[in-house]
């Protein structure tokens, strides 16, 4: 019995991934046309781990986050694959199962706190409501007290007073802290942050990233960070998944992928980012633009923009293959030797 390593046991529960997405396919049907938004995407996030999902507009990173949360917009649906949160399958699960996870075991922070908070309710009351939505035994007074404590923990000064403020009375950074407090209200095991610092000034972004880091450290939650900012990735993530046109181009540790990118798209992306520290090298543009999911190029979707593309790239979709090396990574490119 003890030799049977393949069999899952109860002791694995603490190290099993909190989020496991496998071969997820999401399609959009609009005006009689069909587009594959996510084309077989697999990711996993372990307890206490931060995984960043990066890519340009239309890569599908937000759709992936929404699919996990069971919040896909109308017209989009999951066609195949699996989404497991805390071991429970959410694809085709009854609504009440997904709802009980959402805001409890899994929580999400959006880019725009202004439109995610109700303008007519005090922020403390909104955090308290999030608590009572999942802890039906909590009294109103107890929930209100816990809300103030949560607001204090995300670094809101004079939390008792600010809890009585309406969202418009708070700055963008403070509103995003309220969103984090609300997301952390029920001790989620999975926290998804979708461009949570994109709308913030850079000094405020630094503060909010610190709050996110601290919230995760305090709870040991798994965190999935959706961003287009490679600096934010390097600042907060352990692993990174680079998406291009609905597929994963490259995935691995931050050191491997950002330190020594292997996929031509990752390389191009990094060369295009202006930096404070890169000597006098000018930014290098990637020619062309990301494709529409309605007109995804055949083969490797990046091939029309890729300098090393050949005939095979335009006909054969490259598989995402693990590469051996100093750092663990997987790359979907015909021109990256496997294994190195």
């Amino acid at each position: 019995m003890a030799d049977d390593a393949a069999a899952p046991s109860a002791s694995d529960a603490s190290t099993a991934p909190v989020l496991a997405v496998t071969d997820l396919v999401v399609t959009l049907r609009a005006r009689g046309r069909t587009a594959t938004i996510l084309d077989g995407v697999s990711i996993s996030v372990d307890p206490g781990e931060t995984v960043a999902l990066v890519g340009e507009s239309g890569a599908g990173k937000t759709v992936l986050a929404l699919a996990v949360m069971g919040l896909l917009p109308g017209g989009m649906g999951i066609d195949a694959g699996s989404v497991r949160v805390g071991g429970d399958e959410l694809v085709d699960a009854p609504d009440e199962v997904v709802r009980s996870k959402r805001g409890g075991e899994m929580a999400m922070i959006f880019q725009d706190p202004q439109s995610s908070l109700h303008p007519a309710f005090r922020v403390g009351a909104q955090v308290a409501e999030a608590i009572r939505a999942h802890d039906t035994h909590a009294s109103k007074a107890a929930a209100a007290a816990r809300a103030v404590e949560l607001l204090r923990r995300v670094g809101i000064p004079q939390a008792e007073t600010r809890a009585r403020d309406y969202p418009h009375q708070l700055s963008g950074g403070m509103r995003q802290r309220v969103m984090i407090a609300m997301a952390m209200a029920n001790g989620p095991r999975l926290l998804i942050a979708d461009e949570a610092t994109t709308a913030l000034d850079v000094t405020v972004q630094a503060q909010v990233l610190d709050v996110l880091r601290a919230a995760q450290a305090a709870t040991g939650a798994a965190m999935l960070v959706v961003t287009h900012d490679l600096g934010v990735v390097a600042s907060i993530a352990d692993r990174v998944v680079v998406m291009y046109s609905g597929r994963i181009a490259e995935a691995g540790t931050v050191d491997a992928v950002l330190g020594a990118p292997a996929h031509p798209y990752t390389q191009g992306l990094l060369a295009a980012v202006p930096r404070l520290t890169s000597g006098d090298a000018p930014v290098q543009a990637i020619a062309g633009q990301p494709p529409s999911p309605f007109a995804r190029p055949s083969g490797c979707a990046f091939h029309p923009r890729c300098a090393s593309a050949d005939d095979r790239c335009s006909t054969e979709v490259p598989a995402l293959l693990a590469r051996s090396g100093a750092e663990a990574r997987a790359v979907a490119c015909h021109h990256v030797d496997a294994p190195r």
Partner: protein
Amino acid sequence: MSVEPVSTAATPLVAVEGLVKHFPVQGDAYGRGDRDQVVHAVDGVSFSIAPGETLALVGESGCGKSTVARLALRLLDPTAGTIRFDGTDISRLKPRDLRVLRRRAQIVFQDPFSSFDPRRRVGDSVAEPLVAQGRKREVATRVPELLDLVGLEAGAATRYPHEFSGGQRQRLAIARALSVQPDIVVLDEPVSALDVSIQAQVLTLLADLRARFGLAYLFISHDLAVVRTVADRVAVMHLGHIVETGPTAAVFADPVHPYTRALLSAVPDPDPRVERTRERIVLAGEPPSPIDPPSGCRFRTRCALAVDACAAEDPVLTDRGGGHLVACPVALAASPARPAPTPPPAPTAS
């Protein structure tokens, strides 16, 4: 690689002196609220731009950088101060006398989605400044040239804005700005709405056009890394003031003002090795209100270096050598000027 110090140029293209813009506070939807209050959007800003030079105004939201851009083009009227364009004081000119300025200075806005009329063919929009200048006859030849210049096909002229991506629309906005062969283009967050690979394309295009036509740019941005790649000189704004300005290389390699230092230290770097060892200065608290800014130095409430004198005196921009000016006597005293790599320009006798 060093760019000639631009202050040696005879007449600056744009020279702004003591610029002030206060906006009245509107009160709430019912007209309540203190109507005597003003937002101190811009409070005594001075700078100049030489022909062919790129000056970047950088700062966080609400620092007044976009207001300065609009004042420089007289799209807003200043509360006080003077704006000279090629030696002529334009700060009090009547709208109809601004026609020459409108030809010589153009603007490109951040949002490529709202700066084009959705019901007009983009060729007509690109030609609009030409038509406004009474040069309708040139339209047929210039529009294809302009589209080619910004890397679009001539056939694009007959299409509508929704048929273009964000990056292509920003190219169209640049083509429109260049239609009247301006001397300077004000670029207000021109790449902020674009994906990083597209952003690099537009930055490359702007650099090419500048080299080709000797254009001057006033580049407004919140993105310090972008500014570093495009600007000859940079001015860091904080709550309506310029707190530090100088050659880009000097300001980025050796920032002196505590706000500039905090701002630079807040930018995360994509290289994980750099990111791990980066010095970080995290500012405490919230930025003060521009309606009721702190007395003296407006940064002092969040500044680690603040002393009593900071509340009493408005710090003035002081040259620490090589045209690198800093408005912080405390930081300047602690940070003596390094020997300048090139001798500072001789003051021109006027």
